[in-house]
C-alpha cells in the first residue's frame, strides 16, 4: 500500500491518510474519496510515512493517544507534522494535534503542533451535546451546520494560531496554524465538506 514512496521523508505526492485507530474514520474516508482524493487508512508508522496529508477523525482521544504510542505511529506522525504535512483534526483529532490538553485522562499526551490549549468534554455530558449554525468567514457563505458531540473547545489560543470560528459567547471552535487545521465539531456528519476541501487544498498546494 505504501508503494515506492515508503521511507521518503517528504511524501508530498502520496495519498492522503485517515488515522484509523478508533472513531468515525470510515466517514472521513468516504468524504475525502467523494472529493476525488486518493485515500488510505493509517495505523502503522510505515503508513504514516507514505501519506501527503492526514485527517484525524472523531472518537475518543485518550484511546487514539494510547494506541498511536503503542504501535509507533505517534512518533512517525510527529516527524511528518514537523516537516509541515497538512493535518486536519475533528473533535478528538483537534485534541490530538493540540500542544496542550486540559482535562485529559491521567498521562494523556498529544501529537502536538497547534499552539493551543484544548479542553476535553468542554460542554459537559452527552445531554449537553448539540447542533448549531456557525459562521466560518474563511469558508464564506452559508454558515456551516455544526454538530458538537461531547466536544472539546480551544481554551487558549497561542500567538501562532488563528481562530476560524467561534460560538456566540466567543468560545473558539475552529482553528488554523499554517498547514494544521482543527474543528471541535464534525463536518463528516453533515454533508458540508468545505473544511475537507480546505484541507485538500493545503495538500495540493504542497505537491
Amino acid at each position, binding site marked *: 500500500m505504501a508503494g515506492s514512496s515508503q521511507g521518503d521523508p517528504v511524501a508530498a505526492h502520496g495519498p492522503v491518510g485517515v488515522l*484509523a*485507530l*478508533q*472513531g*468515525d*474514520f*470510515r*466517514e472521513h474516508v468516504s468524504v475525502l474519496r467523494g472529493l476525488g482524493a486518493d485515500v488510505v487508512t493509517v*495505523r502503522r508508522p510505515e503508513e504514516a510515512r507514505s501519506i501527503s496529508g492526514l485527517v484525524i477523525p*472523531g*472518537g*475518543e482521544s*485518550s*484511546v487514539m493517544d*494510547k*494506541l498511536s504510542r*503503542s*504501535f509507533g505511529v505517534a512518533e512517525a506522525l510527529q516527524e511528518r507534522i514537523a516537516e509541515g504535512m497538512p493535518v486536519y483534526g475533528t*473533535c*478528538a483529532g483537534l485534541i490530538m494535534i493540540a500542544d496542550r490538553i486540559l*482535562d*485529559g*485522562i*491521567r*498521562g494523556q499526551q498529544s501529537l502536538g503542533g497547534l499552539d493551543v490549549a484544548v479542553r*476535553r*468534554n468542554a460542554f*459537559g*455530558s*452527552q*445531554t*449537553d*451535546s*448539540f*447542533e*448549531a*449554525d*456557525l*459562521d466560518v468567514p474563511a469558508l464564506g457563505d452559508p*454558515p456551516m451546520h*455544526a*454538530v458538537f*458531540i*461531547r466536544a472539546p473547545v480551544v481554551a487558549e489560543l497561542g500567538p501562532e494560531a488563528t481562530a476560524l470560528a467561534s*460560538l*456566540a*459567547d466567543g468560545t473558539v471552535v475552529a482553528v488554523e496554524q499554517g498547514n494544521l487545521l482543527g474543528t471541535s465539531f*464534525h463536518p463528516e*456528519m*453533515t454533508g458540508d465538506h468545505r473544511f475537507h476541501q480546505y484541507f485538500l487544498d493545503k495538500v495540493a498546494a504542497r505537491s
Partner: protein
Amino acid sequence: MSDSSTHEFGSSRVKRGLAEMLKGGVIMDVVTAEQARIAEDAGAVAVMALERVPADIRSQGGVARMSDPDLIEAIIAEVSIPVMAKARIGHFVEAQVLQALNVDYIDESEVLSPADYVNHIDKWDFTVPFVCGATNLGEALRRINEGAAMIRSKGEAGTGDVSEATKHIRTIKAEIARLTSLSKDELYVAAKDLQAPYDLVVEVAETGKLPVVLFTAGGVATPADAAMMMQLGADGVFVGSGIFKSGNPAQRAAAVVKATTFYDDPAVIAEVSRGLGEAMVGINVADLAAPHRLAERGW
C-alpha cells in the same frame, strides 16, 4: 450566528453521533470506580456502570435492577470517557433517573430483569441516547423505531461463551444482505416477516446497513473473540464479565482494545494474547436451561 438559544439538543444526529464516535472501540462493564479507572487506563472507549456483572447476576439470581445512583455518580466522577448505565426493559422511570444523573448513554438491557413484558421504553422522549440489544434484524429495527440510537447484538451475557454473539451478528448481517437483494415489491412482505416498520426496512434495503451503529456483546472474553466480532462486521464490542472476572483485568482489557483496532492482523492478536492468565471460567450456552437465557428477553 450562533447563540445558545439556537442550539439544538438531543437530536437524532447528536444521539446517533456519539455511537459513531465509539466505533472501533471497546465498552467495558465496571462495578466500582476503581474498575472504571482500570478500564479508562487500559483504553476503554466508554464504561458501562452496573452493580453486578452479568456472570454474578446469573449465579446470584434474584431481580436485577438499575444501579444505585451513588455508584453511578462515583464512576462518572472517576473517569472522563463516556459512562453508560443500564435500565430494565420497559422501565421508563429508571431511564428518567439515569438521564437526571447525566449518564452519557442508557442501555435498555435484557441483562436486568424486565419491568414490562409487552412494551419497551419510548426512547424518543429522552435527550440522552439509548442502546438496545437485538438477536435479529426485526428486533433491531423495532428498537430503532422506538428511538434507539445504537444497537448491540445480544449474545448470551455472563457466559464467556461467544457462540450466541456470533449467531446474532451473523443473523443480523445476513438479514441485511438479503434485504438488499429483494425487489421493491418484495419489501412489503419482508417488513411483515421481520415485524419491522416498512420505512426502516426500505432504508436498510437501500443503504445495506442499519441506520445506527451496530456493536456486538455477550460472551466476548478474549482478544481473539473481539477481533472475530469485528471481522464479522461489528462496529465495536462490549465486554461484560470477560474482563473483571479474569485473572489479570488490566492486561486483558488493554489486549482486547488492541485486538479490536488490529482485528484484521493475526500477528498483533497473537502478540497481545500472550500471557494474559486465566480467562473467565465461563458456562457453555448449551448447558443453560431456556429460562436462564437472557437473550430471549425483549419483544
